[in-house]
């Protein structure tokens, strides 16, 4: 993870220098397949050949650098044919084709996408995340380019978007004014103050995946470098209502997975700073997937984790409110969202929920969050989970849903 220096804030740049070999590969592959389709079935050779990366056993320790490297002579090629010899091979072929089409669209529209985004375009089809990971990596390897040339971006960690000023002593260390550009979350030191008094609509993203294909857009993104936020797992959304019935001024923080130390320090500093700047206490909202991991992530934001017990008092977010996503949010309005969009829990999900209920005081029956406990139990009873991706399909997309929900909670 490339971390920002304490005093600077980096915006992530989309590399506009495209590698022509990628488009060439995609075009050639698709053209060959179309040509194959025009031939008689006996002559047709519908296949895609990928160069496979070396497996760990085919790696060597470089005697000079001491680093783990791929052994030079173990390149293997794998041919995936349609319809192939087995159903599995046929499926694998369609997976590659599907991913190629997604990458093609991402490259043509200049959008960045993460492997996770690709997986979530059709989780039932891809079955497991690692299928996508592997094919993307093999494609990059076959073409001989870096993954970023496919517009596939590793999820960066700790991003913030919005208007805020980081004040250290009497200096304004960071003056973030853009509501369209994301930047890495700055390192916070003791005594730092975060001024959000003039901010209009700000959001912070943590480990956020960058623009996916076909996702909804947040407002204030009218620049030529239009980006989409909101794919992947969302972390925390903050909202400050200066006055009732006013468009919420919110700082949104998007995260993938559990928040890291820097992220939580930043949020806590914001939480501690705001009461000095505003008469009305601000609201802090969290939006995560409606699954055991989402609930555990929310718990980590609010109560921190068992791994950092000595720091938790400085990092917890006691005012954090639960925005969603609840399984019941989806079932309650099936016409809008489609209750078939819910996914079944896996055995691992169920075990994870049981372990959470059993082991953590946060979920105890006499604990601080009976609603959280109830939600985990409802998931078990219904055997279902809800992922945020579902909300893209609702009226106004994810943003519309968030705004409606914030007003309702207010």
């Amino acid at each position, binding site marked *: 993870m490339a971390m920002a220096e304490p005093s600077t804030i980096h915006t992530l740049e989309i590399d506009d220098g495209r590698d022509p070999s990628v488009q060439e590969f995609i075009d050639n592959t698709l053209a060959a397949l179309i040509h194959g389709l025009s031939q008689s079935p006996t002559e047709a050779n519908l296949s895609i050949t990928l160069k496979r990366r070396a497996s760990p056993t085919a790696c060597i320790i470089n005697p000079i650098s001491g680093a783990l490297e791929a052994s030079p002579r173990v390149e293997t090629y794998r041919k995936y044919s349609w319809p192939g010899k087995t159903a599995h091979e046929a499926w694998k072929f369609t997976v590659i084709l599907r991913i190629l089409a997604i990458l093609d669209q991402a490259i043509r529209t200049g959008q960045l996408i993460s492997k996770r985004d690709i997986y979530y375009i059709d989780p039932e089809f891809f079955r497991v995340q690692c299928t996508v990971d592997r094919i993307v990596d093999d494609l990059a390897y076959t073409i001989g380019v870096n993954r970023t040339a496919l517009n596939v971006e590793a999820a960066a960690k700790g991003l913030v978007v919005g208007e805020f000023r980081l004040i250290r002593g009497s200096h304004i260390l960071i003056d973030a004014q853009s509501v369209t550009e994301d930047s890495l979350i700055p390192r916070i030191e003791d005594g730092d103050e975060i001024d959000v008094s003039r901010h209009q609509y700000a959001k912070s993203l943590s480990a956020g995946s960058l623009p996916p294909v076909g996702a909804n857009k947040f407002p204030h993104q009218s620049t030529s470098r239009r980006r989409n936020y909101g794919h992947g797992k969302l972390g925390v959304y903050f909202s400050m209502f200066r006055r009732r019935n006013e468009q919420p001024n919110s700082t949104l923080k998007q995260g993938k997975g559990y928040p890291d130390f820097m992220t939580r320090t930043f949020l806590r500093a914001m939480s501690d700073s705001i009461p000095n700047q505003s008469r009305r206490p601000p609201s802090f909202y969290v939006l995560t997937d409606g699954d055991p991991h989402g609930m555990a992530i929310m718990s980590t934001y609010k109560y921190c984790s068992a791994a950092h017990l000595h720091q938790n008092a400085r990092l917890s977010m006691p005012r954090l409110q639960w925005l969603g996503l609840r399984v019941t949010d989806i*079932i309650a309005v099936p016409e809008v969202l489609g*209750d078939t969009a819910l996914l079944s829990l896996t055995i691992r999900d169920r075990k994870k929920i049981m372990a959470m209920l059993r082991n953590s005081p946060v979920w105890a029956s006499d604990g601080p969050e*009976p609603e959280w406990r*109830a939600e985990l139990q409802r998931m078990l009873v219904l*055997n279902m989970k809800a992922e945020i991706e579902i909300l893209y399909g609702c009226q106004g997309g994810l943003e519309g849903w968030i705004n409606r929900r914030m007003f309702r909670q207010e």
Partner: protein
Amino acid sequence: MSKQYLSRGSADNAHIIDIFSLAITDKQILSTSGASSIKVHSTTDADFPLLQSIDGAHTIGCHHIVTNGNGSRAITAGFDGEVKVWSCQDGHWAADAKLTADLSGADAWAIALSEDGQYLAGVTQEGRINVWDLATDGTRIRDHETKGSFGTCIDLSPDGRLIASGHEDGAVYIFTTETGRMPFSLSGLVNPVRAVAFSPKSRILAAAGDSKVIVLYDTSSGEQIANLSGHSAWILSLSWSDTGEYLLSSSFDGKVKVWSMETKTCVATHSETDKAVWSAKWLPKIGKTEGFATAGANRSIAFYREATG
């Protein structure tokens, strides 16, 4: 023709978390929830007082409770995966430590208890159906495999001849208890099944779930008799009245419906809450009037009686 049921009060906030299951005896209603205790309320007193609270019954909550016909035995299935046995003497419930120990390791999500309390049937998260004989130290006497889809619900026919289970993939299975065979395969539902219930004379099996319709099957032929549609949300629970004249259903949007078996139509709809009603059960008749109890995400138990006169 519609019928009227009047609210006869409620046990407000009987639990601090969603009530997932209700079980009835002649004078009591037992409830379990996401909290750890089993609550016992009187159904004969006008204000439905709390008679007993079995605290710490299931530390991480309990999703199913069933009782036998005469109300001497109850079985609970908890979120921790444990199945526990409770026995009642003079209206007071106590843990049956021996049978609970006998059943340790018994794998069951949804459970059903035979009328006489001797046989416990359960369906697992993998869709396996087991039957235990509680008269012989909880020996497992049946073990049926299905296609592996999550078993959400199970029922034993009152005559003891049949077991039915409902599954997440929409399948409904019937087994005969004597041979362990499936007499026929049922057409099933499209979406997850959340409730199955045999009529008092065991002639009809009702099944319902996310498809929002109740399907009635003839248990002698496996044919569908009727589809009852009217719910606009997932159906979570089903209960037959003593005589089999009426079927009670509850759904995710808080609606409770009473269906006439004579006309196959909905004769009453109640919507006291907009939150999920996880369980609805007919109460024993008082005189000639019938009544029912409902409970769910609003954490109270509501009681209704038929309007007479």
